[in-house]
């Protein structure tokens, strides 16, 4: 813990990153502890195996350390780390499923979001129904749309950051978001209506 004291809260990611590039182990440690939780949360969307996610993060940082002389010194650290972890995990997962003889599209592409509905915030039954409906619809979105929604609404990332993390163009991010939201709203309305009608008849 002592090493972290060398980095005041004022040290921004960029400064730490440059120290890290220069081979400073304390900067390395700081980077890793500052980003670990978020990376872990993100990584867990690709695999439920927590040990595997931890190993991937460890590997990610070892790779970065190893390659630090070839890394850019003016990068946005957070999206860069997330993008790198994403790539690394995709590769690891696809070779893992290849080894296990599973078909790729089955395993490679999962992005799982789990929600819980906190009822304490809900005062009407109709709101509860709507929330549950939304939860279900979110779960049915294609994985890339789910990932965009997650990064945008639950990690509060900007369009450019998301585009970097998922290595797609900013335009693609916008498109994915638009399609996803449209989908959520459309079905929501339709299904909500059915729900309502059924209730009227019961």
């Amino acid at each position, binding site marked *: 813990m002592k090493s972290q004291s060398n980095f005041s809260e004022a040290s921004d990611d960029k400064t730490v990153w440059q120290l890290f590039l220069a081979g400073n182990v304390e900067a390395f440690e700081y980077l890793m502890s500052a980003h670990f939780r978020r990376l872990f949360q993100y990584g867990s969307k690709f695999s439920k195996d*927590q040990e595997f996610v931890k*190993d991937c993060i460890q590997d990610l940082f070892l790779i970065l350390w190893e390659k630090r002389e070839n890394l*850019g010194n003016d990068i946005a650290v957070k999206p860069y780390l997330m993008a790198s972890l994403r790539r690394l995990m995709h590769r690891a997962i696809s070779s893992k499923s290849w080894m296990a003889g599973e078909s790729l599209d089955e395993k490679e592409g999962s992005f799982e979001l789990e929600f819980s*509905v906190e009822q304490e915030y809900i005062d009407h039954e109709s709101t509860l129904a709507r*929330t549950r409906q939304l939860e279900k619809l979110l779960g049915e979105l294609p994985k890339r749309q789910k990932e965009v929604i997650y990064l945008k609404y639950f990690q509060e990332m900007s369009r450019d950051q998301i585009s970097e993390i998922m*290595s797609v163009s900013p335009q693609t991010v916008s498109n994915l978001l638009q399609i996803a939201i449209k989908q959520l709203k459309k079905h929501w309305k339709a299904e909500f209506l059915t729900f309502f009608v059924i209730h009227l008849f019961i």
Partner: protein
Amino acid sequence: MDRYNHYTVEDFVWDVFFRQWVLSPTRETDIAWNEWAENNPEKSDAIQQARSIVLSMRLNEPEISEPEIREVINRTLSRIRTHSPEFAPNEEPVKRPFYRAMWLQVAASVAFLMLSAWIGYSFYNKKEAKQSGEYTYADAGKDLLLVEKVNTTSANMLVSLSDGSKITLSPKGRIRYPEQFVDAKREVYLEGEAFFEISKDPDHPFFVYAHGLITKVLGTSFRIKAYELSDEVTVEVKTGRVSVFAQSDPDVVEKASNRELEGVVLNPNQKIIYTREEVRMIKTLVEKPEIVLPKTEVPQFEFEDTPVSEAFVSIGKAYGIDILFDEELLKGCPLTATLDNQTLHEKLTIICKAVEASYEILDGQVVIHSKGCRN
């Protein structure tokens, strides 16, 4: 905030500004939204409902405690410390062989785990494995009529096989092969280093057994290094495709008999490093990749304001290597350069410098990292 006048509940739920106010209100957002709600009393129901939904939909993030995080960090630190020269000042700063590079180890770690499982399995079924052909060079083919050639000279030795295949045996290399290939499989046993040019015959796949590694080809040229005293076996492909697998692989029989190439498949300019001790395979590129296209089809690598993506495609094609990059990001990056006389790595380095990108070799492919050009 006029745009909110026609918002429905679901519009609010997916509005970033609205969510910010609900989830982490500040004085400013509070004032803005309260004022808006006062002016739009007909929306108060919608706002109330959207608010409940946003608040109640909680994403379940996995739990991880600080000590757990600490543990991983400490583990990682101890690994970089044992690797960093600055923490071992008395040690000669040895340049580590490139295949020791961490990313390669990572790329191979999964393969490593699986192979460990295989080993365990084959240990378990040792008898079966014996039958499926586990042997050392020394007892290979004792019960068969095999010719042995040993290169005791200091020059390369050319060995011709009955099917027209040619083997260039390096000094000190030994090879055993049948005088006539009569079986469905063409099988030879190698110790040391050799370059193989195998004549094409898909009905009779060609197998090289070397130090625990099986290389299966249909017709191609490649080099194998399997020195007796070294733990490593490498296979480098020049043309065609080969597949390699460990003898310890429990599926070895099936893989060997299948007409398709299975196991780790290598393309031209790719290379596998198989470490016997650690039982892992690492796929990478040969040190000096060569152009695989016939001379007449090799394009000129002269680029003038060419989109860099085109340059990558043309180079990838010439070397028969996959170069992965983000088309969208590199769209706006023009490249002007003449790169006819450079090696693949020089070409890539120069191009990456020019468009502020970087590259790495991963699993036998080139991966371009770029943030795009904004001009």
